[in-house]
């Protein structure tokens, strides 16, 4: 069990650092097309920012910002976004996960629609990876110390 830190330097620095880490995570997700990165990597960076909060401010302060309910919803939301993008393509007359079908709904040509379809699923992957990483970290952290009884 990680105790929350009493060191005021760590607390203050991490307060400022978390915002920049999250901004970088969002950048990695959003620029997964043009530069190295994508949903998996960006989701891990976003989860790392919350893990920094847990190690400096404690679990309870982190739960106020990103609670159990929010995590449970976001676990499923990412997979839902991914699967629903595929289903939307199916409903619009293309194959499942064939993003060219999105051009029937949005005013872009079929080639460009693949770009935006890829972006939509990267966002879904990022949401799921972020909240699953954080869920696993926190659930392993707060396991009861003596489970033999």
């Amino acid at each position, binding site marked *: 069990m990680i105790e929350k830190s009493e060191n005021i330097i760590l607390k203050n620095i991490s307060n400022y650092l978390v915002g920049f880490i999250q901004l970088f995570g969002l950048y990695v997700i959003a620029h997964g097309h*043009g530069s190295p990165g994508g949903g998996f990597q960006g989701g891990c960076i976003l989860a790392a920012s919350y893990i920094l909060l847990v190690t400096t401010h404690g679990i309870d302060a982190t739960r106020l910002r990103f609670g159990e309910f929010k995590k449970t919803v976001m676990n499923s939301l990412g997979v839902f976004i991914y699967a629903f993008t595929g289903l939307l393509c199916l409903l619009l007359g293309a194959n499942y996960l064939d993003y060219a079908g999105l051009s029937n709904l949005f005013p872009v040509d079929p080639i460009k629609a*693949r770009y935006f379809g890829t972006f939509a699923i990267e966002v879904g992957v990022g949401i799921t990876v972020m909240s699953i990483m954080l869920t696993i970290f926190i659930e392993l952290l707060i396991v009861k110390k003596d489970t033999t009884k």
Partner: protein
Amino acid sequence: MKILSLIVAVMTGAMLIYAAEDFPAWGDLNAPASKHLSPRFISKTYEETSIPNMVTAVLADYRGYDTLFETTVIFSAGITVVFLLRGNRDD
């Protein structure tokens, strides 16, 4: 029983190593992957998908099903951790 398991493991490993001998060498220009697959993706990815990053295009577009179920695997792993460990906590 342990001896038997060891024999089976060693035999399987030996078969895999024997089969790996037939793979093309690392970075072999005449391997089928380098001859047909890579040039196809390098030359056609941008005009087919308009995604500048080839890796992302293959990951999310050409191999969309793969990534969908990768995400589902991560989701299942997290849900399993929640089911196994939540309820064992102190508070």
